[in-house]
């Protein structure tokens, strides 16, 4: 009798042990112990009403809003807004749900290629201002210049319209034409131009020969597909002038393609580590510069950066610093230490998801930390020479050695190095 009872107790305890093992299996598999709260939720889920599933919560609210809201809604827009909110709740500013239009714009940005008139537009009270007219584009050929304000498109006034509306009105099919009315500060009369929409490669690299110091200045605005090639072209132009120093400006460069930064770095060094990437499942990958593309820079190089230099721009600056091939001047960079992949979805939108974290060759983690307000606390790459600057100051012109304090300092640093 006693033996049977003992056997029963032994069996029951083994059964309980097995059950607990099964319950904790998903944690044990990852080498962790289950949280106490997990067991707590077990008790509460058994004793109280079951909580609705996440999917159910989403569906219920979706249907309620669609059914009851006072204004008519497009079901698809509501659904997408929900998915956008869902991805935002991860708290990662680089993981997001892109609607088809946004996804297309993102692709245009990384490819640096589109069909249009070849101008970068900004909002203006009288329409849209062409902050930049690309010299290789049709707008330039038709006579437009940087600073021109577009006040009418095909006879329709643009004053008061949103920038996006104006851009949409100007864009169109390749080969078709658009008539633009231009206000130019230096001309009291209104000008009219007809521009033929063509395929335009967006310049992402600009250069300037700085006469006084005999140095070259190259502005890289994003790291897109053609950037490394465009860099080669601009550098060739400057080297013909026999520059004694080179300043590469990546301030306000939000980054772009990792591969583009890698290509540009390959001009400086071959087979060197660019970044080390760590993925979700613990997998690591190392990206290196390509062999056979490195050239000899017979002069010192400085890189200008600021808090808006992010991602590929930081990688570029950080790698050059690590190879001891450039001096970093300016303020700390943004601190984006992650890599994203864009997953196109069947119905048009895309999901841009952070798939890995990266570390610079030095090994350290530059990821940005913010406080509750979203204000910068720490992170980013630190410059070698720190120079603060007020970008809102109307007297400052970026790229002008007379009024740009960060550029001025970079020139001084290079002059000391050249000696």
């Amino acid at each position, binding site marked *: 009798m006693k033996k049977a009872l003992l056997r029963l107790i032994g069996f029951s305890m083994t059964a309980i042990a097995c059950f607990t093992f099964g319950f904790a299996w998903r944690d044990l598999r990852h080498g962790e112990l289950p949280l106490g709260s997990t067991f707590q939720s077990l008790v509460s889920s058994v004793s109280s009403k079951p909580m609705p599933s*996440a999917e*159910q919560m989403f569906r219920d609210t979706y249907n309620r809003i669609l059914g009851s809201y006072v204004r008519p809604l497009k079901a698809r827009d509501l659904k997408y807004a929900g998915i956008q909110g869902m991805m935002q*709740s991860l708290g990662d500013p680089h993981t997001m749900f892109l609607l088809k239009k946004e996804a297309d714009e993102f692709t245009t940005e990384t490819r640096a290629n589109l069909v249009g008139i070849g101008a970068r537009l900004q909002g203006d009270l009288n329409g849209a201002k062409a902050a930049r007219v690309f010299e290789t584009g049709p707008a330039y050929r038709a006579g437009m210049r940087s600073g021109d304000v577009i006040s009418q498109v095909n006879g329709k006034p643009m004053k008061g319209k949103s920038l996006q509306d104006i851009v949409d009105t100007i864009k169109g099919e390749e080969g078709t034409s658009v008539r633009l009315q231009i206000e130019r500060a230096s001309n009291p009369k209104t000008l009219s131009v007809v521009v033929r929409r063509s395929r335009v490669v967006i310049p992402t690299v600009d250069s300037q020969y700085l006469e006084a110091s005999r140095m070259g200045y190259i502005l890289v605005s994003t790291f897109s597909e053609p950037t490394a090639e465009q860099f080669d072209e601009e550098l060739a132009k400057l080297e013909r002038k026999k520059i004694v120093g080179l300043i590469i400006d990546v301030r306000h460069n939000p980054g772009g393609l990792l591969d583009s930064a890698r290509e540009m770095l390959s001009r400086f060094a071959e087979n060197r580590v660019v970044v080390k990437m760590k993925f979700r499942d613990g997998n690591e990958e190392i990206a290196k510069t390509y062999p056979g593309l490195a050239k000899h820079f017979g002069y010192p190089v400085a890189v200008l950066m600021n808090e808006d230099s992010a991602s590929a721009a930081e990688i570029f600056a950080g790698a050059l610093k690590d190879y001891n091939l450039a001096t970093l001047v300016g303020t700390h960079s943004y601190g984006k230490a992650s890599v994203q992949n864009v997953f196109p979805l069947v119905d048009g939108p895309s999901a841009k998801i952070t798939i890995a974290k990266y570390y610079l060759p030095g090994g350290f983690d530059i990821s940005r930390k913010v406080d509750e307000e979203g204000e910068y606390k720490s992170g980013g790459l630190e410059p070698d020479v720190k120079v603060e600057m007020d970008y809102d100051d109307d007297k400052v012109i970026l790229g002008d050695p007379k009024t740009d304090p960060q550029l001025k300092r970079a020139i001084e640093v290079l002059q000391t190095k050249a000696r």
Partner: protein
Amino acid sequence: MNPVGKSLISGVAVAALALSVVGGDALRAHVESGGLALVAKQTHPADSVDTAGLLVSISDVPEGDYFREMVRLLRREYVEPIPNERKLAIGAIRGMVGSLQDPRSLYMDVDEFRIYSNAASGRYEGIGVDLIFDDGNMGKTYFAPVDEPLDPAASESIALPRLKVVALTPGGPADRAGVKAGDWVDSIDGHWVIGPDLIKKFREDSQRATPSATKNLPPAEIKKREEIAASTRRLFRTQLKAAMRPTKAKNLLTSGVSGTHKIVWRRTGSVRTTQIEKAQSAMPQTATPSGALALRFVSGASERLENATRDKTQITIDLRNNTFGDFAEMKACLTVLAPSGGYGTVQSPRVGKSRAVKVENGSKEKLLINLIVDETTRGPAEAFTLALQTSNLAKVTGKTGGDRTVLETFSLADGSGYTLVVGEYIPEKAQTKAKAAARMDGLQRTAARDQARGDA
């Protein structure tokens, strides 16, 4: 016992142990996802929407499937583990409510919702005020989402609602400091709550100084305009740098029971500075000195009203400082006081969505009803007043606030919640349909979003 029996028992025992392991895992799945993993498969017979499925087939994916597949995609690819699916659902709900771009349809997190629910019952924290994001009847404009930081590049073309006081707890901190209904918040402790007025001034002053506006003016005038524009730009930039989000401002003023704040208030023609200490305060349950009933439209209101009117020939109800509550509860109160019949409509511009407000099994008693109202009587309280007034069932002292928006409030499983505008209350024998429709048009918005630049 014979050997066959013994091995049978051993076999059963081993099977039972194996089942325990599986059972443990299954129960864990239940706990994690709120549904037994096995059962979930059954309730979605048309599943097999393979994760790759979202990437390659089907054209219009139903919302529930879309959500589920996106979660799966994240679980597979996102660099961090996804700890809590419900948090994702709440994020989705926030996104949907936010996309309405409606200053009156708002998501509230757990704390905000608790404060809202307490206030509906008359229990207040903070400085003792009801605040709303007032769109000021601005018609066709795009509103910045109130809980996102103000983007300086986009700020030139968006409108912002005002954070306005619509009611105060009598004798509460704000009331004692002289704050009045209709005041709106200008700044809190030196942080600006940027509203439509500065943006309008910025746009106007800047436009007046542009080359095309000053083409044929004398140089002295041009210089004057440029100086005004520069000074407004500086003011705007200063305020932007020290700005406080409207939602943060609202929460700061309505939560917590300690702490003193310097608050600057505006109303047309005046600016006032106050120092106010937060404390608990309450809306009265009976008003002094007459002992009138202060009726809040929350659960239990109709019972309170029944008890207050039983065996009575008259009742005085004070509906001041009564700006929100439950519309259904208000209807139940109408049923206590009014005979069966029609009492107007909750009008919606959507086809087939307008609902008549009908009282069934109404009161058969003849009751003398007195209502005390003023500009702080809004929402369900205003509808209640108008319903009784237009049917000549009540004598009304004062004029209501003019807010007939009908809101529904929904609570979510995690304790948060949201309000949703479902229509506007139009009393019986009131304005023509055309006028009501015109007011609805004023709520139309264009969802144009500006970027800092656009490549064309």
